[in-house]
């Protein structure tokens, strides 16, 4: 796992050490996996509020009169559906329909888009998008000059009241402590909250400010460990695990983020065929139905004692106190409510295919 390549550090590296974080390598970065503990941080976000450093994620700016048209030929969703100040979840596919990355596109000006991509895919995305762009656009990889924080949880809006009027999946330019940021009502936890994209130099001051303001709500700094358990409970896919270049949006159940009406885009031919003819495997969510060790990636999924798939993400759900996960199974076995088995160290433990999301968000 540990490459010989030097790990990158976010502008908050020193801050994490001061706050007692345990640091681990993730996607080429040295990131906090936890501070006080995954269970405690997880609960803070579900019940109150937590703060994450997500500066490892990449930011691209795509600008110019052709920006919308150029991106619509590269990404699966239709950017014509969002106006200035709105966000859209979308996929970057290759010609085989394989998922190079999943990302959020923000239309920050009529012809300027901010794309937030996964840390380990920054270079790959940039190369692929540059190679396939058929129209002239200004395409800037701002990943090294920008930082990002995620303020997540039901009390997030009390910590950042100046963003209270920002609607779900919208973005505004906002000053916090006099520092200009993009503040979006998006996240990767299934809770209300904000993602704040700022200048790298402003990140430490904003981090301290948000933790200070969050004190009355017992805010917790949170690491990637809790980020993973939070996202898995609400079945948000993790690129590299649940979706990869070897899987397509149709197999992953992400068809609603693919627009077939907008015209050509990379991967469309394969995806149209899969939409019409169906797919041979599907990404399902499951819950363990008895006492078992936590399910983990690569454990076999069985139906009637026959291997029908493999886990791509699995954990002990801190909220439910039970094992949960996702994995690809043969399409004929992908029935909600169907009993399955998970093979763990040679033993089979009972589980059930669940409707996504496993955890329904409180409204």
């Amino acid at each position: 796992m540990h490459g010989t390549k030097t790990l990158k550090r976010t502008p908050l590296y020193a801050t994490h050490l001061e706050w007692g974080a345990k640091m681990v390598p993730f996607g080429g970065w040295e990131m906090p996996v936890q501070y006080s503990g995954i269970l405690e941080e997880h609960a803070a976000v579900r019940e109150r509020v937590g703060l994450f450093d997500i500066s490892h994620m990449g930011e691209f700016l795509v600008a110019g009169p052709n920006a919308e048209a150029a991106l619509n030929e590269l990404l699966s969703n239709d950017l014509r559906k969002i106006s200035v100040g709105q966000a859209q979840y979308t996929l970057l596919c290759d010609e085989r329909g394989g998922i190079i990355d999943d990302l959020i596109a923000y239309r920050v000006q009529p012809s300027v888009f901010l794309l937030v991509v996964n840390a380990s895919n920054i270079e790959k995305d940039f190369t692929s998008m540059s190679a396939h762009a058929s129209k002239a656009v200004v395409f800037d990889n701002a990943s090294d000059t920008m930082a990002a924080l995620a303020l997540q949880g039901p009390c997030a809006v009390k910590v950042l009241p100046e963003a209270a009027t920002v609607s779900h999946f919208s973005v505004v330019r906002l000053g916090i402590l006099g520092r200009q940021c993009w503040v979006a009502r998006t996240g990767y936890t299934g809770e209300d909250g904000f993602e704040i994209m700022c200048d790298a130099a402003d990140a430490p001051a904003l981090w301290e400010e948000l933790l200070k303001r969050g004190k009355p709500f017992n805010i917790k700094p949170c690491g990637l460990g809790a980020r993973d358990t939070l996202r898995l409970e609400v079945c948000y896919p993790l690129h590299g695990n649940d979706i990869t270049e070897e899987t397509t949006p149709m197999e992953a159940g992400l068809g609603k983020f693919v627009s077939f009406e907008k015209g050509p885009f990379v991967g469309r031919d394969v995806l149209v065929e899969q939409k019409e003819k169906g797919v041979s495997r599907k990404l399902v969510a499951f819950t363990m139905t008895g006492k078992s060790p936590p399910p983990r990636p690569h454990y076999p999924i069985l139906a009637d004692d026959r291997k029908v798939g493999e886990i791509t993400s699995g954990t002990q759900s801190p909220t439910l106190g039970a094992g949960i996960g996702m994995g690809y199974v043969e399409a004929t076995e992908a029935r909600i409510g169907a009993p399955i088995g998970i093979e763990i160290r040679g033993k089979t433990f009972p589980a059930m295919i669940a409707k996504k999301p496993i955890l329904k968000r409180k409204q």
Partner: protein
Amino acid sequence: MNVPKNLKYAKSHEWVRVEGDIAVVGITDHAQHELTDVVYVETPAVDSRVDAGKECAVVESVKSASDIYAPVSGDVVAVNEELSSAPELLNQDPYDKGWMFKIKISDPGELGELLSPDDYAHHIGA
């Protein structure tokens, strides 16, 4: 880190309390701290034979599964049944309520291979 003076230690972070010909085994305070939130414990079967230095149990945190190694060889004579419903005892009380299993020691000479409290403390940099 708490390293009680009355125990012996394996480099792989198990502790041993010798009670006659029985070795009571658990994981150290350092180990539970590194593992963090323990959510599942798989103990060896009673009457099974374990060999010094070989994996014989599994402790799982939210993040990962870790093998636990038998510090000495022998037959397992008891396991801590409470851990199946309260795995967090490994975090809360690693040297007492969080004990994992008891081995009937087959070769007392193996105890000499284990670390003293001072050596273990040095081993973990405490």
